[in-house]
């Protein structure tokens, strides 16, 4: 036991002596969470649009005023000809063009019908669709206003309640995701690198012939990182509470315990990666190339899992991050306890055990 403690001490020295890595390790997550928390949003605001007004009358002017005063759009330019649309789209200057037809007001009063074309640059389908919906709702509103004099009988009025996130803040969606990505990658990368480093430099052999048992070597290597990751997790949670005003509706201790579980699972994933790679380069490329994009895309961090194809949903289920994000959102936003998230916790625990068992099986006591 004394030997083991000595070994852990040695590992801590290693980490604390490398000031640059330490700085990166603690500085990066803070910068990232601040940057992403403020900058990333999937709302659509201030979209640049162009207008082709063929009638230039009172009604079109009114509608244009309404559109430019809404927070969603800023009218960037007025064009005169239909052929210009192609040109400005190709330059990527505007995302949409509204075309008001000729004799707009006249048609509205005489024929009761008039049209607006919403031409969107749909290379970004999400933005295009949302723009289309927003313009439409502004038009609908205007239509209702000019129709006030006419009675509209039989109204069904839906009253909408946005549960857990009344103001529809993107931050609530992204902070748990960013936290998960940072914890997972830092933990998995750190352990996989530190173990393969010993292999590559040849010092693993020395550790293996020492009286320390192989599992002690591994635990000794991983232990400092558990400690460091917990500090990271605490800092991130504090930032999200005090700067991004994330609520922690549930139990803070439960949040801590679940985070430790997730950290351990990421660390054991790192151990697993290190057992199958011989060089630091391989280990890093595996944990970066293998984990970064799948975790961003499939964990429910940005894209809703429900809408994905069944096969992708299955893949998403084997990513530990998916479950941790559900747990985080559950505890922080919904305020649920273990009674509700026991299933997710068990899955995460099961994955952790699986990683550890696999690592033990794969771990070679002898070097070739």
């Amino acid at each position: 036991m004394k030997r083991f403690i000595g070994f852990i001490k040695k590992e801590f020295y290693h980490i604390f002596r490398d000031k640059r890595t330490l700085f990166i390790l603690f500085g990066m997550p803070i910068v990232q969470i601040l940057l992403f928390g403020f900058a990333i949003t999937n709302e659509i605001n201030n979209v640049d649009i162009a207008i082709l007004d063929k009638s230039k009358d009172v009604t079109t002017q009114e509608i244009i005023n309404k559109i430019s005063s809404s927070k969603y759009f800023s009218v960037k330019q007025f064009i005169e000809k239909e052929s210009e649309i192609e040109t400005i789209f190709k330059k990527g200057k505007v995302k949409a063009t509204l075309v008001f037809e000729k004799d707009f007001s006249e048609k509205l009063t005489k024929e009761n019908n008039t049209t607006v074309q919403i031409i969107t640059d749909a290379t970004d389908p999400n933005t295009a669709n949302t723009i289309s919906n927003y313009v439409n709702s502004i038009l609908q509103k205007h239509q209702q206003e000019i129709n006030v004099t006419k009675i509209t009988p039989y109204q069904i009025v839906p009253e909408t309640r946005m549960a857990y996130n009344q103001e529809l803040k993107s931050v609530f969606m992204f902070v748990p995701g960013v936290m998960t990505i940072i914890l997972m990658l830092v933990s998995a990368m750190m352990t996989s690198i530190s173990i393969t480093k010993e292999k590559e430099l040849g010092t693993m052999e020395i550790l293996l012939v020492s009286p320390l048992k192989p599992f002690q070597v591994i635990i000794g290597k991983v232990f400092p990182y558990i400690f460091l990751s917990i500090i990271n997790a605490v800092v991130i949670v504090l930032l999200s509470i005090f700067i991004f005003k994330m609520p922690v509706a549930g139990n803070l201790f439960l949040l801590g315990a679940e985070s430790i579980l997730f950290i351990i699972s990421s660390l054991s994933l790192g151990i697993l990666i290190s057992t199958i790679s011989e060089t630091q380069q391989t280990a890093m490329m595996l944990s970066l190339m293998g984990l970064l994009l799948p975790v961003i895309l499939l964990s429910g961090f940005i894209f809703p899992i429900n809408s994905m194809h069944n096969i992708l949903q299955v893949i998403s289920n084997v990513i530990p991050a998916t479950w941790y994000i559900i747990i985080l959102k559950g505890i922080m936003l919904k305020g649920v306890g273990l009674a509700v998230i026991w299933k997710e916790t068990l899955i995460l625990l099961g994955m952790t055990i699986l990683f550890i068992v696999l690592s033990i099986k794969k771990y070679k006591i002898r070097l070739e």
Partner: protein
Amino acid sequence: MKIIGYIIQKEFKQIFRNKAMLPIIFVIPFIQLIILSNAATFEIKNIKFSYIDYDKTSFSRALIDKFNASTYFNVITEYPSEKIANSAMLRGEIDVILEIPQYFERDLLKDKKTNLLVIINAIDGAAAGVENVYINQIVQGFNKNVQTDLMQGSDKKNIPKNIISIPSFWYNKTLNYKTFMVPGILVILVTMITLFLSGMNIVREKEIGTLEQMNVTPIKKHQFIIGKLFPFWILGMLLLTVGLIIARLLFNVPMVGSLALMYLYTAIYILVILGMGLFISNYTDTQQQAMFIAWFFVVIFILMSGLFTPIESMPEWAQFLTEFNPIKYYVEIMRMVMLKGSSFMDILPQFGKTVLYAIIMNGLAVWSYKKTN
């Protein structure tokens, strides 16, 4: 020239000898391109819908039938009370609760006005917004049906004025997400591979101690750098080529624009990334440090590139920061050239900035590289 050739030969040998790295470089990126391009969609489908019907009349049932018929909502569950429905939402079993109040039908017929309560799980604010639009559309449609049914034969003067909007989606009529995502994900994969490999390359020699041996040889600084980085430039172009073939054949992504323009731009873009990799290598001592720094920038570049979330919606300072993001330009240009057929003149601003970036980055990297310690 001959010396550069030998170094390049050596680098290629090293790449191909490392059997563990080959699949990471040549297989994982394409598997990811194929799988992940399908995942990245903001389209909201399969909404887990539930309702509480306190009214149980022909009207309320007709409304629920409307939801049944919609393709957006799939799991339709009925709950006897709001309390039970709420706890189901807590467990994440449902996304939306529609509560039809008692006397829904009676109020509608008598007072000509009635209410509905809609509760949406809004943790994903954007999805909640879309779900709300869908629900409103269905309710409005139902409302219109009711109006025409109950108001038959009323006078014509009452016809309300209509502003009809005709949406048309250019370059992507069916709003297919894959044509949007495939070029973007390809860009990220090319960037990650070239940046990580070049960033680790020289620092690795430093760590193992072989860099010193290289430094005492008569190889000149520029020969060494070109010889070291050129293989990764080739690798990047190769990845792009295979990726484009996959995009064309598997995903049917339209390629309207000039292929030559895309290659020309990529050739310069990869120089930016390689310069960055070299710069990172110069200022780090271990592969670990180099990788952490590379990782730090890549995550920032990816999430702030406009690939997944729109740049216009970011606060101004963040939009300013994206000006320094090479991935942003690459994503924009790939989408513009591939999907819209933009010409060289159209992409000139981005192109110019990238060239400038390449010059500055490589200048800095070469300047900071020293043969002596």
